[in-house]
């Protein structure tokens, strides 16, 4: 037996890597070691008051802090029976678009692109191809601008609160966002050109079960309380309170993460899953771009998640502009948050974080303090599916070549855009 160890992929020593065990040239076992510790953070909110929960849990991750904040608010509002206003719903959706733009720009341009173009890092890529990196940085900045305008801070938003917003953005702020978004339309076209020019990455093919939020509007990261799981024409719908149906997690020795399956099958969440589950939104500019990227749904290649993120980024800009037009058409109202009347009970919030479904579920006592909390991240949900695709990639690689295998497995793991959400962020000195 021989072992191929790739990693660490994350900044924590000894974690976040890939281990492949061979017997001869046959894969005996393959593991993605995820130091996913969102669950370890749950004790931090036990006993906390309802208005302290989102600000704490938003700090799980700086990249996904809007997703954690809004999912947390959704869970709390569900527990207390709070109905937010249509304007709050639109503003929250706009925040999620900002987060998706910044997160996808970071991933596509600065994390995935160096792999495709054979550069060891984004900085090495920037030295040779500054235009591509500058384009990515510009789009990321746009995403951060949207989040900061609505969230009140560069990271870890404080302005989105239980029941609404502490302060509704001004007309002038919304107009400024519209102007920045309109300037980004051309950048999105340049991005699609760039992604369409990248070499094909056919490392593995496998039937895949996809899961994503299903909403009445068919194009939302925030609204909706049902998850659709879809594979090969078969579909199942799970409502938010029943989320454990698909996060029936199994503890594993090699990972702090727990593997999720639906009726025994691993499933994939994220951009590719969203486009697959809600295909009716793929019209107009998006459909043209999809054709240029040669993306066919349902896909059987997890590398297509990178193309799906590029498509979503394009759509996020368009959708954000639509939301702004609607806000301006309806007239921005200086609303106060809906009054909160804490009560005992359980509430669940499900949203689409940039890298897939995110679940927060809380139980409160009658004083509005947390009794128990459950946070399940997209990376945790994706872990079993990722391991399946890594295995297929090794099996479909042909003759064993550890250099090729290592490169392919890293690219597949990266295509899943995993978020090692509460790993430490120390600078390491060599």
């Amino acid at each position, binding site marked *: 037996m021989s072992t191929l160890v790739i990693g660490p992929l994350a900044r924590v020593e000894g974690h976040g890597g890939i281990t492949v065990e061979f017997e001869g040239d046959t894969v005996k076992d393959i593991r993605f070691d995820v130091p996913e510790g969102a669950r370890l953070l749950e004790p931090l909110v036990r006993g906390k008051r309802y208005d302290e929960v989102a600000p704490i849990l938003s700090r799980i991750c700086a990249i996904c802090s809007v997703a954690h904040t809004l999912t947390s608010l959704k869970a709390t509002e569900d527990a207390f029976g709070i109905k937010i206003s249509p304007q709050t719903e639109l503003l929250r959706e706009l925040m999620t678009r900002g987060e998706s733009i910044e997160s996808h720009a970071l991933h596509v341009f600065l994390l995935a692109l160096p792999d495709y173009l054979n550069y060891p890092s984004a900085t090495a890529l920037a030295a040779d191809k500054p235009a591509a990196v500058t384009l990515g940085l510009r789009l990321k900045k746009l995403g951060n601008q949207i989040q900061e305008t609505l969230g009140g801070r560069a990271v870890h938003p404080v302005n989105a609160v239980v029941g609404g917003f502490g302060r509704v953005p001004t007309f002038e702020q919304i107009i400024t966002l519209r102007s920045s978004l309109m300037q980004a339309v051309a950048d999105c076209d340049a991005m699609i050109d760039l992604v369409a020019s990248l070499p094909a990455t056919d490392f593995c093919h496998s039937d895949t079960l996809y899961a994503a939020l299903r909403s009445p509007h068919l194009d939302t990261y925030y609204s909706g309380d049902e998850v659709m799981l879809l594979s090969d024409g078969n579909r199942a719908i799970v409502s938010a309170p029943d989320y454990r149906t698909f996060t029936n997690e199994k503890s594993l020795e090699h990972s702090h993460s727990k593997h999720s399956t639906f009726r025994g099958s691993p499933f994939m969440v994220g951009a590719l899953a969203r486009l697959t589950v809600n295909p009716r939104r793929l019209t107009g500019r998006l459909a043209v771009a999809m054709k240029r990227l040669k993306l066919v749904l349902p896909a059987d290649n997890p590398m297509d998640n990178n193309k799906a993120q590029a498509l979503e980024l394009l759509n996020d800009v368009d959708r954000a502009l639509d939301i702004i037009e609607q806000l301006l058409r309806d007239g921005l109202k200086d609303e106060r948050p809906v009054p909160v009347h804490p009560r005992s009970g359980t509430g669940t919030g499900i949203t689409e974080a940039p890298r897939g479904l995110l679940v927060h579920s809380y139980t409160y006592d009658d004083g509005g303090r947390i009794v128990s909390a459950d946070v399940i991240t997209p990376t945790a949900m994706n872990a079993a599916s990722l391991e399946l695709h890594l295995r297929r990639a090794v099996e479909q690689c042909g003759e064993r070549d550890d250099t090729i295998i290592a490169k392919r497995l890293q690219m597949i793991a990266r295509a899943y855009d995993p978020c090692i959400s509460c790993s430490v962020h120390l*600078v*390491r000195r060599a």
Partner: protein
Amino acid sequence: MKPVLLIGLGNTLMGDDGVGCVVAERLSGHPRLPPQVEVMSAGTDLLACAAHIEGRRRVVLVDAIQAGGEPGGVTRFEDLSELEQGQDHVHHLSVVQAARLLQMAGGPTFVLIGVAVRSAEVSMELSPALSERLPAILESVLAELAEPAEN
């Protein structure tokens, strides 16, 4: 716009990893903070502050660093390229790589003040060892900020 920006970095849910943010919080509004300095926290995403970095002369980053030695020891890095190796990870760019990218795009001078930590555990508090050293860490950062900005 103030010419110097101090950015505290780290995850405040992970104990000592969040020391940079704690420093930023303590120095925000501090009576000895030089008037040319603005202070903010960036969590773990320096690029989220790109718009705030543009137009500054100098940016001072404070972050936890795994460098051996006693917890709380402070090391100053002007040349971030010496730290760039070994910072790769899947989900986002390291602080060092993000600062290098902003520099390459015509950004300001960056200085990294690394605060040595031994471990980072789930906690919203600093470890007792690091808490004890916090006054000395704040003095080091204030001394860095007191230096005249270049150019």
